[in-house]
């Protein structure tokens, strides 16, 4: 694969040497050398981004949600820029699972990249068949179940908004997926109580949670006096939604500290990624910002390592959920390691805390 030449001049966030931080993460059983992944729908199937950075160097490529059959997606306009974000209404355009497995997954495998396959369906049966088809495909790192895309064909079937239907989908996928392959449920923030949905899908067999999907939004074109998107409403993403995403991760991690979380929502740099980790994410996805900076996933991974090192963390996993510690035990200036008298694992000392990290 051809690779772009990246020739940035000095910039404030430039990272030359990656510090010696153990960035290994265990995402629901999938051991990844880096906790930074792409986000579904923001990386196609990795091939385009491999021109800009070595996609084998990030945690995994999370592929665009695939459905059973080829799908044209919606009419244009499909996107509108919003302050620090964008609205999209693509309509899950894609080649269908068979073509996807034969071409895209085969390419990722040949490339040596890890792949998290995002699947989307309009019925329990479609999810079941998707999982069954993937069951015999080698080298899949995990399956992410898109139950929360606001763009699916029948608005009555936004599974993610109802605990029972969300659980039903996840149970079907888990049942039809090989035991060693983690199943992550991707949650929508457009719910009254995200913890309730999270509990339901975990009880149904989800090995981990991806959060958050886009928020349903709308832009009206003041020249045409009509909705800006052909699909009328669309999914809001980008840094504008980051505080919502961090809140969701924090709430769910507080309620279920042992459930692994893949956090996403507007991550632009290493400190943004660190927020998610501190809130309780074991790994993060870089999504919309990749449209702005195609080398963002690898850059964020490096910046996160620097940010962790600067705060005295020697291992990423020690920082997971760190923001849940009791304020009295917050580290003094100089970072967690020194703050705990050189204790290499700052969370060990906090085993009695109700909302500790996963360690």
């Amino acid at each position, binding site marked *: 694969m051809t*690779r772009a030449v990246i020739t940035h001049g000095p910039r404030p966030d430039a990272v030359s040497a990656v510090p010696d931080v153990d960035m290994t993460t265990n995402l629901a059983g999938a051991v990844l050398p880096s906790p930074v992944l792409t986000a579904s729908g923001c990386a196609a199937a990795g091939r385009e981004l491999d*021109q800009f950075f070595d996609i084998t160097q990030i945690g995994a490529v999370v592929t665009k949600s695939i459905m059973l059959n080829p799908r044209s997606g*919606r*009419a244009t306009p499909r996107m509108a820029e919003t302050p620090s974000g964008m609205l999209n209404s693509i309509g*899950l355009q894609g080649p269908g699972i068979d073509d996807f497995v034969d071409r895209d997954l085969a390419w990722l495998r040949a490339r040596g990249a890890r792949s998290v396959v995002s699947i989307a369906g309009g019925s329990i049966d479609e999810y079941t068949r998707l999982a069954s088809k993937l069951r015999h495909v080698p080298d899949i790192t995990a399956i992410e179940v898109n139950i929360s895309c606001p763009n699916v064909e029948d608005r009555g079937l936004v599974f993610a908004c109802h605990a029972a239907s969300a659980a039903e989908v996840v149970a079907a996928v888990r049942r039809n997926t090989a035991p060693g392959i983690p199943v992550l449920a991707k949650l929508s923030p457009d719910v009254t109580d995200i913890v309730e949905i999270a509990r339901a899908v975990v009880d149904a067999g989800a090995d981990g949670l991806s959060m958050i999907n886009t928020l349903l939004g709308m832009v009206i074109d003041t020249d045409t006096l009509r909705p800006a998107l052909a699909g009328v409403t669309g999914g809001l993403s980008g*840094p504008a939604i980051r505080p919502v995403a961090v809140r969701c991760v924090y709430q769910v991690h507080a309620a279920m500290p042992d459930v692994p979380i893949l956090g996403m929502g507007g991550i632009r740099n290493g400190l943004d990624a660190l927020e998610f980790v501190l809130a309780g994410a074991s790994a993060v996805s870089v999504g919309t910002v990749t449209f702005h900076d195609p080398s963002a996933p690898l850059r964020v991974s490096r910046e996160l390592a620097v940010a962790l090192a600067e705060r005295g963390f020697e291992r990423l996993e020690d920082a997971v959920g760190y923001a849940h510690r009791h304020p009295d035990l917050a580290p003094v200036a100089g970072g967690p390691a020194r703050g705990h008298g050189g204790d290499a694992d700052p969370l060990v000392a906090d085993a009695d805390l109700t909302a500790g990290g996963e360690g």
Partner: protein
Amino acid sequence: MTAPSQPRVVQTTGEVLGLRRAGDYHVLTLTAPGLPELTRPGHFVALGVGGPHTSMLLRRAFSIHSVQSRGVYGGSLEIVFATHGKGTEWLSRLHRHDQVDIVGPLGRPFALPREPVSCVLVAGGYGSAPMFMLADALRARGCRVDVVLGAATESKLFGVLDAKRIAATLTITTDDGSAGEKGRVTDVLPGVLERTDADVVYACGPMPMLRAVAKVAAAHGAYSQCAVEESMACGIGICMTCVLPVVGDDGVTRMLRSCVDGPVFRGDRVRWDEVGTVPPDTLGAPVSGGHS
């Protein structure tokens, strides 16, 4: 594992070398080391706008007007733009030495004929920006090049002097008659095609113009190569926003990305009348009523 080979695309921080007015348009010159050597006529660049902490996340796509591979700056490029939003307004306020993030060259360039055939280049407004590099490439192959430039009014024509220099003949139209013939490019195009016995028509400009040019070309038995203008978010093929219905070699219509499958398409392959929709016979089109 597959190994990386030679790069085809560059991501680089360009420095502003110059920004000048040309009628109603702006011409921006940026350093772009490594990019000129990779650029072919019809390629575009996707620029980040608003600086490093911008709230404007989407890249802006511009046809590459010209490239300079030598010189003290070790490679530079020029783009032409009109201000019609916050992003282009930001670009129009840049000063010398300001920095702009550049990704390019992107897209599929114009296909060039193997034989020294007769070519007509048609452009609307600043759609002429990529046409001068194209004309140079065609003339280097011994092709006859005739040019038709059209715009709403004289100040919205771009590159008239350059066009005079490179074209066997130049025909100008304006909607208001302020320059050249009053009317549209497609009013004069049949005559130009007749007179030059053109084999290929190259076009760049607004979608309605491309649709009309493709039809005129087809009626004269000429191939057409049209560089489309679709709004893009990323420019590199990952966002799926810039699609339009295009018929493939297999006769099947697909929603293709204008950033990686285009921006140059064969005029006879784009379903011009249905751009902005998903024709019912498109691969994977909704069975009824659309993906809601």
